[in-house]
């Protein structure tokens, strides 16, 4: 029983990161119908930039804020330079563009920084907290709380603010949104900026636990995508639940079955979800327009 709790703790921690990546996916997907394969790079950038600004002597909170702002700007640039010019391109092209962009970001990071793994200190120390016979790191609590806070923040943003409603309107029907005077171009910019900021935030939170290197983004993007798909593409609630579930599946597989095939869980989940219920846990059924 202790072991089970222990696995769940670690599952929820990674799961919270997957959930944040999935939320980032969801925002961009809703605003632009683009699945951004560079989403994992935002997490990497958040961690890497914090590491290097912190090492340059800035206090950790300031370093983190800088990292989030810079990453957010990179997200906006990604939209302006690569996604907007290719508006209306077929899915294959958009996939190649975002994968290409992720390779560019990785290549540039490796040039500007280095190829090593890095970390910075945890926010509130490394003394494990004992809960019912299992232990959890304080940083894990930060990660989980961070994911929940982002989720609640997004919920308020999308349901209580005019700007958030404009994003939802654009997601529903771009042309109609334009007709009622919503600046959909600005909504796109906002979505990419926000999504990148959330990714970077995840990177800041999780780096003390999992370390960060220039190439950690690929796996995160794929797992985050699996989480988004499990929850139902385009649904923020689905992204949160999907991420946490996927994290727990992985931790349980590693604990009880095989740590080697832990990485396979995400992809088995993807295939299973797509075969059995392509709309995911919370997604709505879509019909094809002829």
């Amino acid at each position, binding site marked *: 029983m202790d072991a089970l709790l222990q696995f769940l703790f670690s599952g929820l921690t990674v799961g919270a990161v997957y959930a944040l990546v999935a939320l980032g996916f969801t925002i961009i997907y809703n605003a632009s119908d683009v699945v951004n394969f560079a989403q994992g790079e935002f997490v990497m950038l958040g961690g890497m930039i914090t590491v290097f600004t912190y090492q340059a002597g800035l206090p950790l909170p300031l370093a983190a804020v800088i990292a989030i702002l810079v990453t957010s700007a990179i997200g906006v640039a990604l939209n302006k330079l690569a996604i907007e010019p290719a508006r209306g391109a077929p*899915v294959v092209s958009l996939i190649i563009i975002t994968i290409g962009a992720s390779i560019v970001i990785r290549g540039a990071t490796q040039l500007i920084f280095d190829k090593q793994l890095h970390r910075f200190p945890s926010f509130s120390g490394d003394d494990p907290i004992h809960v019912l016979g299992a232990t959890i790191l304080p940083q894990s609590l930060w990660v989980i709380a961070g994911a929940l806070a982002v989720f609640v923040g997004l919920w308020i943003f999308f349901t209580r603010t005019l700007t958030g409603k404009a994003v939802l309107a654009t997601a529903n029907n771009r042309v109609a949104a334009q007709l009622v005077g919503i600046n959909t171009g600005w909504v796109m910019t906002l979505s990419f900026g926000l999504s990148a900021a959330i990714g970077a935030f995840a990177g800041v939170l999780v780096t003390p636990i999992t370390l960060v290197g220039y190439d950690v983004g690929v796996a995160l993007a794929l797992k985050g995508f699996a989480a988004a798909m499990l929850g139902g593409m385009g649904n923020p609630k689905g992204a949160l639940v999907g991420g946490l579930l996927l994290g727990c599946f992985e931790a349980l597989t590693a604990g009880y079955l095989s740590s080697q*095939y832990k990485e396979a869980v995400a992809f088995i989940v*993807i295939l299973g979800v797509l075969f059995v219920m392509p709309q995911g846990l919370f997604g709505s059924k879509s019909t094809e327009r002829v």
Partner: protein
Amino acid sequence: MAGRNKWISLGVLALLIALLPLFFPSGYYYRVGALIFVNALSVVGLVILIGYAGQISLGHAGFAGIGAYACALAPEHLGLHPALAVLLGAVVSGVMAALIGKPILRLKGYYLAVATLGFGILVSMVLTNERALTGGPDGMNVADLGLRGLLRDMGWRLSGGEFWYMICGVVLLIGAWLALNLFDSPSGRAMRALHGSEVAASTVGVDVPRQKLRAFVISAVYASVAGSLLALQNGYITPDVAGFMHSVEMVTMAVLGGVGSVLGATFGAAILTLLPQVLTVFAEYEQLVLGLVMVLVMIFLPQGLLPSIARRLKGRDE
């Protein structure tokens, strides 16, 4: 593409393969050439899947992995001749593609991309984790095909590079010929029809799921044979052949050259194979440049390099 065009495409390809060696300053270029042909072969398969039938796959490296490891494992464990192992790999890949293709191909766009991606990654994970069988991430040796020795006994001495250049060139030609034949066949027409509109195609009697599956299986066999050839010519194979980045490279090559055409596929394969060779001096910039090429070509030449260039030339003539 009428019948005449088919022979022009094949003729150009054959001439290129036959004449290029005249310009090779050293034996090393035969190696690069053979690598280009192998990549082009798997990309021709993707032209059938993406260009003809309009489906996408980010997991075809998985089939290349099956083909490659069939050549590595079957001679050792089943006592098969390496040439038969190529065949075995192709059959396994085809059957596998048929089995997973059935449920997967109901999906569209991103969902299809991710489902195939999942399949590819699972294959590469099995190859990496089953150390006892595959040697894990370090890879394993592949038996010699034996054909070069046979030719030598008959008095035809070829270097390894020359031999594989020839074999891969011939297989690519056969692959291109089959793909071009398919283009105008009833199946090819059906695939292209469903690419245009699945609903319209099904109303005129095209069995859409069946044709999609056919394209998927055929392209899987192409990828598998290409994987086998790669393993045989290197004499060595690692799970990277089945990796996600290899799948991405394959799709990029296909789209880079112009996804509708077999010649374009070869062109795309050539560029993306040569790029790292040219960039070895700037190894640190390799990733950066590769990514930029992918993004820029997709934005500025969405039809791919070859069709865009062809249109430019045509525009000037008229």
